């Protein structure tokens, strides 16, 4: 027997009981095929030989002894870098249901050690705060069918689309129309938008699947869905394809991919849906984009014009500019001009108490085509945990505040506000989106939800998986490793995109019909909203219901 005193522990020595996920292995079922250990993205488990001592006492021979049983079993690593992430890929490959991760309900000791070698914790996903969000708790309570014939969600026609782009006041529209002057471009789009996820953050198969699905929604289903690229450009074959009209191209502080885009302009068959200028993002306000070296593959390096295998941290601000005012003005105008003033250009900012300042700036900029505000629950491919968990502003009150500010100025029709950050966090995507629309958003962007619903992303807000940053996505969604992303069939993703948007369309009607709305998207219809929290109701200027 070993002496207890000889057990050596380091400050970061943990047992499997200290980890957020504990592997439960049923030896009686295990066939020792080894698939689980091969598939585990973090090498959390290993196959090992074990010896079990069985004390034996032979009474007749008056002899004491031991018998030793040898067996092969699965064991769990306890080092921080190999801790189980709970993805459950082991269960998915096990032929005998012999293995799977179980959440540790008591201990999350790893949190204290997640900064080995002085590296602060970086991860993917979104703010690890689970439970119902404010949006989840909003009810649509102004039921019109009691006073009037009800609309039939299944049979009546509904106008569900929204407008992206600068809208002129009616007087100004008429004046310019008569004078033959420039009218800012607008797009009629579906109000649920696939939010910016870069070609780089996502695997080629994921990106292809999304684009296929979006094209199908537009061309077959008649749902004008658009998707945003995120920073990092767009594959040249897409830039020169007729599918570009479904794509919002993002330019961010790293300007990655814009060489390719600018070069492709003369060869573009159509204009992109819009240009998004990223100033901030809800998951990591004040921080630039981050593509970690694991994911900078040959293809990504070519698209972004960088060497392979280096970290690509974008600066937090646009480098060429001295102030946000100057930045907004110059970039919006430059990009409008690059596309012949035919494409709406709008900024994306992180939710913040200073969002109104940006908004008021935009109101005075005749080229600004909208404002996207991304709240604290927004997802990301890579960020510091502290940014994700603790920095930012929830979207509901931020959006509402901005909308009411526009209402007070009588400009709410002019700068469409788009909201993002936690839409569909708990799966209630249509309810969340419609609540934001009725609080004043012209539409919503959703990224994480799309990964979860269309590609089977396993991440959640209780720390599950969240390894998008290091290119080991077990589902192949956020990996640049062909061995991983070939697990994801683009056709399947496209199918799910179509499923998701068809369902959202139906659910929108199911929400709008009882409210008596069908002719236009109920933007700012706050009289239809109630929440069971008096303080929140007061803050959002909606009804308190209980």
């Amino acid at each position, binding site marked *: 027997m070993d002496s207890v005193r000889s057990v050596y522990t380091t400050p970061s020595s943990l047992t499997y009981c200290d980890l957020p996920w504990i592997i439960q292995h049923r030896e009686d079922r295990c066939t020792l095929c080894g698939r689980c250990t091969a598939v585990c993205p973090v090498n959390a488990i290993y196959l090992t030989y074990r010896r079990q001592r069985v004390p034996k006492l032979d009474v007749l021979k008056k002899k004491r002894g031991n018998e030793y049983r040898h067996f092969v079993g699965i064991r769990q690593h306890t080092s921080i870098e190999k801790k189980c992430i709970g993805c459950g890929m082991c269960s998915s490959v096990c032929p005998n249901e012999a293995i799977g991760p179980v959440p540790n309900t008591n201990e999350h000791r790893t949190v204290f050690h997640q900064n080995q070698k002085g590296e602060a914790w970086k991860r993917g996903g979104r703010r690890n705060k689970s439970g119902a969000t404010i949006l989840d708790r909003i009810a649509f309570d102004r039921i019109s069918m009691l006073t009037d014939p009800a609309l039939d969600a299944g049979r009546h026609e509904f106008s569900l689309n929204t407008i992206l782009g600068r809208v002129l006041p009616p007087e100004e529209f008429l004046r310019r129309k008569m004078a033959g002057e420039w009218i800012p471009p607008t797009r009629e789009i579906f109000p649920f938008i696939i939010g910016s996820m870069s070609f780089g953050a996502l695997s080629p198969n994921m990106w292809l699947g999304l684009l296929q699905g979006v094209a199908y929604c537009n061309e077959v289903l008649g749902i004008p869905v658009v998707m945003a690229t995120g920073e990092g450009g767009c594959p040249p074959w897409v830039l020169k394809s007729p599918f570009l009209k479904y794509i919002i191209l993002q330019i961010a502080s790293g300007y990655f991919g814009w060489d390719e885009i600018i070069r492709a302009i003369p060869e573009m068959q159509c204009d992109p849906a819009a240009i998004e200028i990223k100033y901030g993002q809800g998951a990591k306000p004040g921080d630039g984009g981050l593509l970690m070296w694991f994911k900078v593959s040959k293809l990504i390096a070519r698209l972004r014009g960088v060497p392979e295998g280096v970290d690509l941290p974008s600066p937090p601000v646009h480098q060429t500019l001295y102030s946000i005012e100057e930045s907004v003005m110059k970039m919006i105008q430059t990009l409008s001009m690059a596309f012949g003033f035919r494409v709406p250009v709008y900024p994306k900012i992180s939710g913040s108490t200073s969002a109104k300042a940006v908004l008021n700036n935009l109101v005075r900029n005749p080229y600004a085509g909208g404002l996207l505000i991304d709240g604290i629950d927004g997802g990301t491919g890579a960020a510091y945990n502290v940014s994700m968990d603790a920095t930012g502003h929830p979207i509901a009150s931020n959006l509402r505040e901005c909308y009411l500010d526009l*209402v007070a100025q009588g400009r709410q029709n002019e700068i469409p506000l788009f909201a993002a950050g936690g839409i569909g966090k708990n799966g209630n995507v249509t309810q969340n989106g419609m609540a934001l629309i009725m609080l004043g958003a012209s539409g919503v962007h959703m990224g994480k939800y799309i990964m979860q619903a269309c590609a089977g992303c396993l991440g959640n807000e209780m720390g599950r998986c969240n390894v998008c940053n290091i290119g080991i996505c077990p589902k192949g969604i956020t990996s640049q490793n062909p061995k991983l992303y070939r697990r994801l069939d683009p056709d399947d993703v496209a199918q799910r995109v179509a499923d998701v948007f068809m369902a959202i369309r139906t659910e929108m009607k199911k929400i709008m019909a009882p409210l008596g709305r*069908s002719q236009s998207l109920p933007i700012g219809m706050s009289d239809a909203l109630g929440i069971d929290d008096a303080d929140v109701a007061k803050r959002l200027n909606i009804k308190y219901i209980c």
Partner: protein
Amino acid sequence: MCRLALKSSDTPFSPYEVLLAMEAMQEGYDGSGLGLLMRGVQFTDFNYEKDKQVILSGIAHTEEALSRLNGLMEDRGFVQKYDHEFTVHPELIEASDRYKYIVRVYRKPENMDEANLEEYLMQTRLFLRRDGEEHGGDLTVFSFWSDVVMIKEVGWPLAVGDALSLDDNRIMARVVMAQGRQNTNYGINLYACHPFFIQGISTMTNGENTAFVPIKEWLEGKNIPGYTGYQSDSEVFTHILHYVTRKLKLPLQVYKHVITPLKSEELKNHPQGDFLQGLRVACRRLIIDGPNAVIATLPDETSMLVMDAKKMRPAIVGGKPGTWAIASEMCGMMAMVPDRDPAFDFQPMREHTVIIPPDRKELQIWTQFDPFTLPQAA
């Protein structure tokens, strides 16, 4: 649901005729109130001159309010020419605080051009309304305009007509519009009763405007004087009509394109599709929703009927050259113009705007898919 009736005739008639039409449609509404608007007004006791005089309509709820009104009108330079005394039967009125129903004729102030006068009249109406509100609601003002009389009261429409002896032919008019319900979607308030009025433009609606709050917020944000009140979701219909025709100076037909624009695929094939597409974007906060039949009258005695985009409410137009009527139901139409040929009655669909022009010779039935008004014999 409420019921609407409008009659327009070359020869002035008693408003009681329209109340009888409301009575005919009694099964369709709860009779919780009456709103009545008259144009082309004629008094038996006074020779009203439209060009020289304006009419104030409202209710003084107390003697004090009435004497305050006298002073305020004097201060603002209005000389009273006639005070219409209704023969009132108070026992038929539900409310007890009706000191005097006001229909007063004032001389138009001199040395004021038309635009300034219109502004002044509206400002005076709003001023009086505010004054009433500041004094515990003791003064209610419905309209102050040339050739417009408005009566609003809580109660069954015919009973209100009897209470004010509207059948005595002392007030007659060429255009009468009536609505038979207090606003029951929100609180009971005389200001919430249709028809609504701003600068000579008036509308009444059978329906519910479910897009009320965003439209109201947008109109209020325009800071246009008079775009206030909104005790009823239907008041925005009046203000949108005012905005489209007076502020944007667009033809009457465009009203329909603003409140219920065509779909994108329909506009692609429309001769004015490009313009209308742009207009729809610019005016998208004015898109109404819910089931609505909107009836409007204008200062030149034009009357108009517009349906919601799904034709969710009933309405019928009929009549003969010289006399036309719009009603929610056929029985209302029968009561107002019994001697017409019912075969020519017209029930507008979702795309239609029906206009009774001031000459009352024929109806104009205009569809949204056409670029121009198409006159049609009824």
